[in-house]
């Protein structure tokens, strides 16, 4: 079944896109991540122009995050205050990101920077997570109690000024790292077409020491707004949001996420994290491959004069 996409201006197979959305939705439901870091590279492999893939990815993330947040809301797993501070930083970062995005596209280095960012962030996060989860798995096997949060442990982050109290998270930290984290992830969201959950979640756990039960809900809560804002800004500045493409991905994604969540409940936390880490590393390796291996075609062609 073919469909001509109005913004991407190309003909695609409906079933392939629904399947892609469902597969990514399944994984995102299982691991509790937005799945943007999978959907954007997949769209680019499917020959969707990177500009459209990134902007449309942001739109799709809104849907998957809403679905996710609603389930966390019920369990009280959303810290609205922390989420709002992260969001304030996120909006600033996203605005800067969309601007940088247009700039890179103009000088023809967008694909390169997007690939490098993916390799660096996915590689780092995947590596750290794999290391941590394997350690946890070993410890679990030897019967020790596993806890990610070690209260009373203070790092440099806790010495910064402008402290604020976040009741739901039982935290008292400076707003500086919270805003900075939000801004960095907002910027990445705009450039890479991701929600940033895969960076946000570990950063909140390891840097801010947010309890694990509110991490995912809070991260998803702020991602809804950053992704929604990114969608609107991309639509206005680059006009690259393809609503038909987004709709197909959303339908597949939302359906897949529900089954993924059920599958995820049968696995243990460390196992899930180890599997997610391997998945993240595989995507990073695939993208690194294109950076380092001699390309089949050295030349690329683009329509000039269009930013």
């Amino acid at each position, binding site marked *: 079944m*073919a*469909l*001509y996409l*109005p*913004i991407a*201006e*190309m*003909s695609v197979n409906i079933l392939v896109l629904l399947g892609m959305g469902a597969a990514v939705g399944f994984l995102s439901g299982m691991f509790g991540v937005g799945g943007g870091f999978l959907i954007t590279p997949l769209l680019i492999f499917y020959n969707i122009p990177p500009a459209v893939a990134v902007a449309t990815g942001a*739109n*799709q993330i*809104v*849907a*998957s*995050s*809403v*679905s996710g947040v*609603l*389930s966390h809301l019920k369990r009280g797993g959303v810290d609205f205050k922390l989420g709002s501070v992260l969001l304030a930083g996120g909006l600033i970062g996203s605005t800067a990101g969309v601007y940088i995005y247009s700039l890179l596209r103009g000088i*023809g*280095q967008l*694909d*390169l920077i997007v690939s*490098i960012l993916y390799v660096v962030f996915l590689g780092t996060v995947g590596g750290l997570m794999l290391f941590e989860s394997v350690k946890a798995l070993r410890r679990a096997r030897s019967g020790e109690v596993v806890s990610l949060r070690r209260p009373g442990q203070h790092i440099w982050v806790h010495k910064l000024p402008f402290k604020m109290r976040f009741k739901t998270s039982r935290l008292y930290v400076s707003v500086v790292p919270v805003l900075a984290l939000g801004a960095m992830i907002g910027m990445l969201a705009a450039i890479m077409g991701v929600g940033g959950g895969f960076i946000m979640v570990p950063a909140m756990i390891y840097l801010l020491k947010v309890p694990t039960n509110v991490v995912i809900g809070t991260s998803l809560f702020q991602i*809804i707004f950053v992704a*929604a804002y990114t*969608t*609107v*800004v*991309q*639509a*206005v500045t680059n*006009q690259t*949001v393809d*609503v*038909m493409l*987004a*709709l197909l991905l*959303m*339908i597949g994604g*939302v*359906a897949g*996420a*529900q089954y993924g969540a*059920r599958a995820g409940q049968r696995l243990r936390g460390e196992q899930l994290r180890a599997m997610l880490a391997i998945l993240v590393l595989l995507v990073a390796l695939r993208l690194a491959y*294109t*950076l*380092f*291996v*001699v*390309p089949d*075609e*050295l*030349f*690329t*062609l*683009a*329509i*000039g*004069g269009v930013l």
Partner: protein
Amino acid sequence: MSPRCAIILLAFVAGLAGGPALAQQAPAPASAVDEAAAANAAEQARVPERIEIGLSTQAIGVTSDFTGQALTIFGAIDNVDPLVHRQGRYDIFVIIEGPRSELVTRRKARVFGIWMNVESQSFDNTPQSYLIASTRLARDITSLDTLARLSLGIGQIRVQPHPDKKQAREVEAFTAALRRLKQDAGLYREFPGGVQFISQSLFRAEVALPANVPLGQHRARAYLFRNGELVGQTQAPLRIAKAGFEFAISDFARNHSLYYGLASVLLALFIGWLGRIVFKKD
């Protein structure tokens, strides 16, 4: 519109059109002596040929089921010389040329082990697509000079490299890459044998519009050759544009981009919420 359905371009019946125009007189280099005599005799009395193509529609609508389309163009030659026709010495080129724009070719090179775009060459006013059908192989029809002069053939499309400090050989490499990439994308394509005579004066040209055909103002051009000499040419505009729902969406995205963005977000919020309701765990 079904993709199978060819766009019929009306044939103009020979003789209906007005006086001769655009035609060039050409000597007929016949091989045999008596043939030459006959040709010369005919030459005296002959009215110059004219080529006509007509479009039944001036626009092709791209709708959600568009996956490319076969495009058939009908045309006619006025004042056909039956002898030349019998000897198969009339040849026709039909070209569907896409909108022109600036194109940029970039070349990757290794920088600190990473392959990145380092050099680029832009080309001014270059056709985004170029589909050419002819009665037989272009180089069998006429000289390379003539092909180049009229830019008939992928290798002959006139490109204007934007002047910069590059050496001629470098520019050559970028130009070759431009043609190759366009060919790989199916946007520059030759259809030798794509033009066929239906009768002495009527012909039919067939090209395949690819699914990624650029949207905008295209131009259909036709050239008539007799004995390798250009004797007539004509052209007609053809607009390829989004239609129906696709048009409504892209028009909304372009002209009301803020509302389009907000609507996209609302749709996402709705789908996310709906998914939660529909798949709610019992």
